[in-house]
């Protein structure tokens, strides 16, 4: 299971409490960095670095200030990516909330590609959709775009509790099961998050 390799292993959406248990479990799973919205500034607990995850919406984007951390743009409607060129370089990643989005047009996809920021795929959300029998069409669309090198994608756990954290191999397997080539799946789990951590800190 050589998932760690030379890269810094990072889970960029840990949504649970930041404490020693979370750090210990993260360490067991091989993570070096966790990004959490419950952290104001970077701190180290039991050898695991917790960095801030700043979730910003289009309406409040310009008032969010300049804070060190992973800046994630939450896209809930097609309007959120209008005049995307102004956002380019100011966000580290994009998270699309598919439930509130409805149908997407080619124009929306063009904007996502034009923004150039990696797209976030939450492991727990995909699994919830699978258990609920909901379609994974949008995820497959973005994975197809990623496979054609149009955009970048990374996977994070979306854990709200230490017991919901997942091993990087599981994330890699999810992408592989969804049909992504193994090298690209590996990149989405290891390389892209590591690059984002370096840029954010």
């Amino acid at each position, binding site marked *: 299971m050589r998932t760690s390799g030379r890269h810094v292993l990072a889970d960029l959406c840990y949504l649970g409490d930041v404490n020693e248990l979370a750090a210990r479990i993260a360490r*067991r799973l091989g993570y070096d960095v966790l990004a959490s919205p419950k952290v104001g500034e970077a701190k180290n607990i039991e050898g695991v670095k917790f960095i801030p995850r700043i979730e910003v919406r289009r309406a409040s984007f310009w008032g969010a200030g300049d804070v060190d951390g992973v800046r994630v743009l939450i896209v809930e409607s097609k309007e959120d990516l209008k005049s995307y060129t102004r956002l380019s370089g100011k966000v580290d990643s994009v998270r699309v909330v598919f439930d509130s989005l409805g149908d997407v047009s080619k124009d929306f996809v063009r904007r996502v590609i034009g923004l150039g920021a990696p797209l976030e795929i939450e492991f727990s959300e995909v699994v919830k959709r699978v258990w609920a029998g909901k379609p994974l069409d949008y995820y497959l669309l973005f994975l197809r775009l990623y496979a054609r090198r149009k955009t970048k994608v990374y996977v994070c756990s979306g854990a709200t509790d230490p*017991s*919901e954290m*997942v091993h990087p*191999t599981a994330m*890699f*397997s999810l992408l592989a099961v969804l049909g992504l080539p193994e090298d690209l799946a590996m990149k989405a789990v290891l390389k892209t998050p590591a690059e984002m951590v370096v840029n954010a800190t």
Partner: protein
Amino acid sequence: MLLEVLVAVSLVVSLISLYLSFRSWLRVRKVIAVVRGVLATKRTKMLRPRKRYLIFEVVAVSGDLSRVRKPGVEDALESSCRLLYGVLGYSTIKPSLIYYDESRGVGILSFRHSWRSNVFLLLSLIREIGGVKVIVIPRATTGTRRKAMDYVRKV
């Protein structure tokens, strides 16, 4: 004397030629196998099912690890597999818990090699065994049971 020398030389030459022809036959056989493999499309290829042995570790997040028993692990594996991949998937993957150390929480799971990713995904979805919140961490995959047991002894 001359006759004996000639016989010996011819014997040596024939032995060398036999060795060379055998070596070239092996090479040609290898090339033919490679060419056949390249020409064979996915439709004509039917992979021989091989077993893989996955060494995993159960980590208790809340609760006591000693309450996680082998039957509980087997049940969790079977129910998750059936739920995620259905009856057909379950019988194709054929996961079976061949070893589980209850004191350390280390186990060996065997499955069909072509379902590796599916098994990793399956393990990550097991969150509770016997009322204990757990995380199942895959440690290594081996091709033989003996190597898997060696790995377990080293862990």
